[in-house]
């Protein structure tokens, strides 16, 4: 893995919000992402996931530390707007399409202000929408699209300027599990076909499991890193062997008291799968 293959690197990244009651949203984050990777970031609410993504995407500046994208220190980039337009694409959780613009126009938005002609803009938007499977929805307004379709438009939009990096903050957070899975599959396909690097923030283990690597954050730090496939399963096995895991498998009252019926169901299913 040569230096050139690292697309994102953070060095001792710290972000402090507020003047009085200060919040250390990021408390020294060091990470590296290799070009073409498809990774996810997990962690409890408030652990700093969105903040980290915002720093990488140059939406905000860190209090201290460095972010390097394509080997370039963002602290030294003058034209951050241009950087965002050309190098990164964003996908947000919800309400992120401009309601007055059609699907195609929404995809064109990032190309406005870039040296792309009108006709070329249009052609590219149509091509991208076709790529995400919305060839027949080009002229629909966001309100006329389903949640999953809207998110696909957002993905097409994120790819508009052929970025090398796409940052997605809970892209499936507002979707049911089926459309969520479809969105992830779409991103995975694009990652393979276009070679675009993806960093997803998610709460959903099912989503995280489809990525190559999971960074787990807590209190503004990266506390664990899983290479999906082995470690995740191992975690589960460790849990199965714990008292609570045993209790769940045994259908013990203790498990039913401590867990909600849904949690119980989910954990039971997972543990049974491991057991097989």
């Amino acid at each position, binding site marked *: 893995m040569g230096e050139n293959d690292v697309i994102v690197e953070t060095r001792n990244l710290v972000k402090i919000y507020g003047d009085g009651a200060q919040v250390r949203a990021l408390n020294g984050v060091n990470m590296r992402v290799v070009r073409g990777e498809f990774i996810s970031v997990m962690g409890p609410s408030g652990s700093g996931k969105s903040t980290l993504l915002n720093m990488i995407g140059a*939406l*905000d500046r860190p209090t201290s530390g460095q972010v390097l994208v394509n080997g370039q220190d963002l602290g030294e980039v003058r034209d951050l707007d241009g950087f*965002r337009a050309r190098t990164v694409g964003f996908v947000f959780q919800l309400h992120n399409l401009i309601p007055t613009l059609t699907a195609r126009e929404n995809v064109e938005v990032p190309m406005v202000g870039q040296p792309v002609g009108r006709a070329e803009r249009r052609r590219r938007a149509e091509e991208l929408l076709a790529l995400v499977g919305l060839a027949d929805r080009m002229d629909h307004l966001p309100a006329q699209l389903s949640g999953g379709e809207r998110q696909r438009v957002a993905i097409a939009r994120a790819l508009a300027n052929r970025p090398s990096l796409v940052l997605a903050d809970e892209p499936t957070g507002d979707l049911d599990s089926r459309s969520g899975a479809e969105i992830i599959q779409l991103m995975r396909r694009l990652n393979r076909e276009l070679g675009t690097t993806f960093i997803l923030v998610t709460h959903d283990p099912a989503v995280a499991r489809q990525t190559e690597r999971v960074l787990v954050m807590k209190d503004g730090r990266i506390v664990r890193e899983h290479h999906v496939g082995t470690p995740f399963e191992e975690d589960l096995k460790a849990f199965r062997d714990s008292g609570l895991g045993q209790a769940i498998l045994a259908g013990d009252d203790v498990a039913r008291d401590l867990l909600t019926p849904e949690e119980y169901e989910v954990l039971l299913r997972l543990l049974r799968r491991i057991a097989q």
Partner: protein
Amino acid sequence: MILKGLSRRKTRTLLTLLGVAIAVAAIVSLGALAEGLTIGYEALGTGSGADLLVADADAVDIVFSAVEEEVGERLAGLPGVKEVDRMVYTLAATEDVPYFIVFGYDPDGFAVRRFRIVEGEGLSTRSAPHGGRPLLLGRAAADDLDKQVGDTIRLYETTFRIVGIYETGTPFEDGAAVVTVEDAQRLSGHPHQVNAFLIKLRDLGELDRVRERIERLFPDLTVTRSSDFAENQETLAYTRAFSWAVSFLAVLIGGVGVMNTMLMSVFERTREFGTLRAVGWNRMRVLGLVLGESTLLNGLGGVLGVGLGIAAFKAVSRSPAVSGFLPDTLPPALIVQGLGVALAVGLISGIYPAWWASRLPPAEAMRYEGSAGGRAPRVRVGAAVLRNLLRQPTRSALTMLGIGIAITTMVGMGALADGMIAEIERFVGGANVHLVGMQADASIDLSTIDERIVRRIAALPGVKDAEGFLTGYATVGDLPFFVVFGYPPRGYGIQDFTVVEGEPLTANGQIILGRVAAENLNKRVGETIRIFDRPFRIVGIYETGVPLQDGGGVISLRDAQNLFGQPHKVSFFSVRLEDPEAAQAVKASIESRFPEVMVSESTKFAENVTDLQLTKASTWAIALLALVIGGAGMMNTMGMSVYERTREIGVLRALGWRRSRILGMILRESLVLSLLGGVGGVVAALVLIFLMNQNPTVAGFVKMRFSLDLLVQTLLTAFVLGGLGGIYPAWRASRLQPVEALRYE
């Protein structure tokens, strides 16, 4: 709870407050003007100590009234009459003050006694110490003009010596001067006439009998109880109507703004209203809540407006040019009125939003997504700008309405001023005339010049001929402003009045009538018409195409001089040159020889006349008022629009849009909105102008003119309005931090 509702959107609330406040300030300050005039006229009547006031029946205003002096002696001889005083009331230009009020009173009469001398002495000392014509100066005028007893003061071209300073307690008088009747007559150009006679009776019980007797003896005079005098002045009625019209307009635009704010605020809180209904509030309480907010908003605006009005009043009172027309202190009734109007507007413009909120079905309201993304448009046509404006059609429509009304006002007022100016230029200039002249510094209605001067001008080298003519107003039949023109029957000026029926004017005692006047008065060739109770035989009907002329009549110059009591005087004169190229040189030579005369090239007349400039300035001031209120609405709307789209703007920034692009997007929206409003306003104004020009009374006086210039000016203004109204919100939008904007709920 009401207060909290309003304080949620501080900028919006403030801007709305501002709109209402300016409207209320207009009510207060314009009301003060009307009030000041009323007080002044009341002082002339009631304050004079007289029981009865005798003036011209047909004069529009006491300043135009001219009664023959001999009448005074006959009045004094009537049974029941104790004393008769003469009164002259005129306006003269003095240092820096174009309309300085000058009274002429009998030095030994009862009426002048009211002018309490606080310094120096009274008028009765015939000739002033150090010589010069004696003059009493009001305290306020003395302070404003920085004059003391013993100083001299120039009124037009005449120098007076200040012999005393007086106080009456009425600003109208304290900002004026008193001279002898004879001097005042000379100033006004009516040597043997007075504006009114003031009569003191032996016994008040005889009042009605004396009054009837005078009116029988002098049918062309009107006798009013001095206490009724002010009410009978048409000027007052016009000033009041004007102040009401402007205030109404301001309130209208302000009201549209309040309605807009309340509607927006109600739309945004749809879910909340659902919750309130769900927890058991009934419709009436919701209605009351919204109405309460709207009324409170306006009440605050009203208070602010009264403050602004008082400040404006204080500031303006300092200027000597207007202080005479304003009351001493702001009448409390006006303050109450201003606040009352504000509250009423609050109530009225709150009704629709309140009703809307109270009618919301609770269950649906609770599911409401909020106006930002929820009410997604179904329109796909048009540019992105239009689609953004269509997100909140009601708001955009109301904003456009506000701007539209402002622009309509601007165009209407502009067309009126341009029309008046064009007309006066045309009737003063006429065909083939190179120079026109009037009394220097005088008001156009009061300009008088000695005939002899005109004759001497005619003899100057380079001048082919010069001719003077007289104009005056009279009430004839139902026409309050019938303009009488006096021309020499054999001169060149009268040739402009093309006779289309009957014969041209040849002798005294004849009149030719304008086509419009003939129709309005329903008169035909051969009939007689009475002006100031003198009969004139109609020999012809003319048409010139100039409304002021077509709505009036022409008599011989001699007749006009007699009629208006100005022997050997003319109002204006025109000059024809041997060589038109020499206009500048001749103008200079006339003005250096006759300083009391102002000459201008006939095409530049309006530019040089103070009156017309004032008319223009005041129409612009009104237009500006309307625009400021409209602009506040504009800023409000764009501010809201940016606010609602905070997240969206965050997304655009995240996608790499530059600040400048965001700024441009919002500015474009605001420009389109104001231009649409502007175009609507222009169309409305065109309709208005068309209708006004169809109306015989208005059209007989002035034809409103809509010029390309005006159109360009207006649209430019709308553009600037859009720019100014949009620039702050656009700037705010462009400053939004992407992360903050994205986090925004």
